[in-house]
């Protein structure tokens, strides 16, 4: 693996390797000295064109626990013109000797441009690009499911996952559908027709317009953030109607089987797609997802940067 741009870059064995590596590295976070020397002397740049404190901190912690040097570059609100922004920033990073670049950008495909342009020779990790993908989120989601529902080992064969919300604009949904399919899980997407992308019938998953139907057969329920602004673009008529038809409340939580877990990539719109009661309830593993994020990102950085450079 030279870069991690899309969940589709990972075959089953690669994905399981990441999960297994993360499991070993999770132990480090429990020790008094949370450090491994593995990436000492390597420079990892967090190139965040979109605001995201949570993800950036997660990558920063991951890199530092592996003893890498971390440089944070935040370009949100920069007045640099659109064209110079990505290329000139990349050339500056190359001059600084970046070994790895973690990039979050508002435009789908920006990490691909960075990786294929020849402006830098560093390994590129996609931390979220537009509405396209967020592969490390999918990995930490799969890890969380594996720990709770598959004994913490192997793949996710036969696991039933339901993902609910604004699939059309969700990079988390795209990456999850791809990765979960690779790991053998069965995925059902639930959303109003306006929030499903054209061509979703060809995705490796089921689709339902009604949330209640798949719940009794769901092992892991993932709620996606739905932005209130979508209402003004006529994707749904009102917050109230959305919450009523697609929101997760105590009643719907009660339809889930005993062992089921509730997940959310964050940040949450409490009261919109999920009630506070369920978000803070016993099924919720939302906080754990964040912890797992660091281990997963340590695993990804180790696998991309810890060994010889792959041509």
């Amino acid at each position, binding site marked *: 693996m030279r870069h991690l741009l899309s969940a589709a870059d990972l075959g089953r064995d690669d994905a399981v390797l990441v999960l297994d590596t993360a499991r070993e590295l999770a132990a480090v976070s429990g020790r008094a000295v949370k450090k491994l020397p593995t990436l000492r002397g390597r420079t990892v740049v967090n190139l965040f064109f979109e605001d995201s404190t949570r993800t950036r901190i997660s990558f920063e912690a991951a890199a530092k626990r592996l003893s890498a040097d971390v440089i944070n570059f935040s370009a949100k609100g920069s007045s640099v*013109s*659109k*064209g*110079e*922004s*990505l*290329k000139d920033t990349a050339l500056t990073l190359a001059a600084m000797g970046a070994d790895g670049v973690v990039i979050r*950008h*508002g*435009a*789908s*495909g*920006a990490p*691909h*441009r960075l990786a*294929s*342009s020849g402006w830098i020779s560093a390994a590129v990790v996609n931390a979220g*690009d*537009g*509405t*396209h*993908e967020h592969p490390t989120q999918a990995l930490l989601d799969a890890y969380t499911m594996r720990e709770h529902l598959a004994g913490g080992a192997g793949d996710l064969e036969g696991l039933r996952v339901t993902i609910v919300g604004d699939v*059309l604009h969700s*990079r988390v949904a*795209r990456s999850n559908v791809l990765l979960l399919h690779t790991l053998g899980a069965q995925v059902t997407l639930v959303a109003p027709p306006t929030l499903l*992308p*054209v*061509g*979703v019938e*060809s*995705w490796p998953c089921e689709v339902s317009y009604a949330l209640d139907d798949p719940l009794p057969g769901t092992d892991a329920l993932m709620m996606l953030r739905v932005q209130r602004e979508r209402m003004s673009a006529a994707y749904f008529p009102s917050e109230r109607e959305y919450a009523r038809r697609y929101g997760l409340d105590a009643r719907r939580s009660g339809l889930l089987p005993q062992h089921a877990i509730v997940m959310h990539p964050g940040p949450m719109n409490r009261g919109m797609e999920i009630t506070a009661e369920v978000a803070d309830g016993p099924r919720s593993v939302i906080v754990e997802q964040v912890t797992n994020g660091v281990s997963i990102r340590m695993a990804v950085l180790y696998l991309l940067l810890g060994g010889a450079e792959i041509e």
Partner: protein
Amino acid sequence: MTYLITGVRPLGGDPVDVRLDGETIAEIGAPGTLPVGDDRVVPGEGRILLPGLVDLHTHLREPGREDAETVATGSAAAARGGFTAVHAMANTDPVADTAGVVEQVWNLGQSIGLVDVFPVGAVTVGLGGERLAELGAMAESAAGVRVFSDDGMCVSDAVLMRRALEYVKAFDGVIAQHSQEPRLTEGSQMSEGELSGRLGLRGWPAVAEEAIIARDVLLAGHVGSRLHVCHLSTAGSVEIIRWAKSRGIDVTAEATPHHLLLTEDLAATYDPVFKVNPPLRSAADVEAVRAGLADGTIDIVGTDHAPHPVEDKECEWAAAAFGMLGLEQALAVVMETMVLPGRLDWAGVADRMSTTPARIGRRTGHGTPIEVGQPANLVLVDPRARAVVDPAASVSKSRNIPYAGRELPAPVVATFLRGRATVLDGELVGAGPGAA
């Protein structure tokens, strides 16, 4: 300077010798029967002679975006592509919505003298889609504008489109519509379909093009005007044009070279050189466009040559400008997709790329038959030469060529503008930038 083109096949017919003297075709005879005299001999054996190509849809960017292209560099690219006339679209800065601006572009083209530059006038003031521009003044100006277009923008207001169609009847003008329903395509980046959903790029649905074309052909039929549809890209659009023509509606349609060759799969590279409006479509759409061009439903090829400076293409997809260059490779792409597979013969090429565009633009003097006494606007074509497309070799100021690295025909040997060679041995001659 007089020229003798020897042993050449006009429109693919039997070989003849052709002598150009002054601005016209002076003599045509069986090979070897014409006295040579002082003529510069241009070998035409094994080659095809076509009327000089006429582009109804070019962006020369001057005035206002001279960082991307100028009338001079655009003319050079056109001549090298075998064109003797181009229609320069109005979305310049300032917009060509007055007699003053169109005359400026007209004069520039004349003084450079590599191709005839016919300015296109905007339909609405500032391309704002709200008020008609002074179409009459532009028609009566020295530029003699006959083609009006807000290209880049769609005249989406139905009433305004109706008025425009009616108004230009007075001076035999034509409205050339960029068919794109604006509300259905807000923020669109590539063709809407399974791929756009997967790539996370907002889709540009086919219906946004087809719905406007359907409305416009019905309007044109209702008010008895002629209509020209720019750069159509979908199978559905071809069907609508076919239907409209079967009802006797006076509509002409145009397709770009890139919509004859390239499909939306190229967007998966996220390389903005493939970002264009209307977007690249599916393989089925490309096939329908080829079939439409072959059977004449699509009347002409228009390049939609759209120069952009490097920084507007060397960035993430969403930030990149829409558009591809087309003048230098247009004939090569038509040969590759239509002539070589036997779907269009040389007479067909002359019709789609010269005679009919000239007719739509009401430009006598171009697209004329290759006969004694006719203006010597000609292009000499090598049907067999091929080369790998190298953007660095372009004479345009921009480099956004989507065929880079692809092997295509390299057909243009010589171009003549009213008897004067603008291109010889494949390279520019004399006046104009980048000349040999």
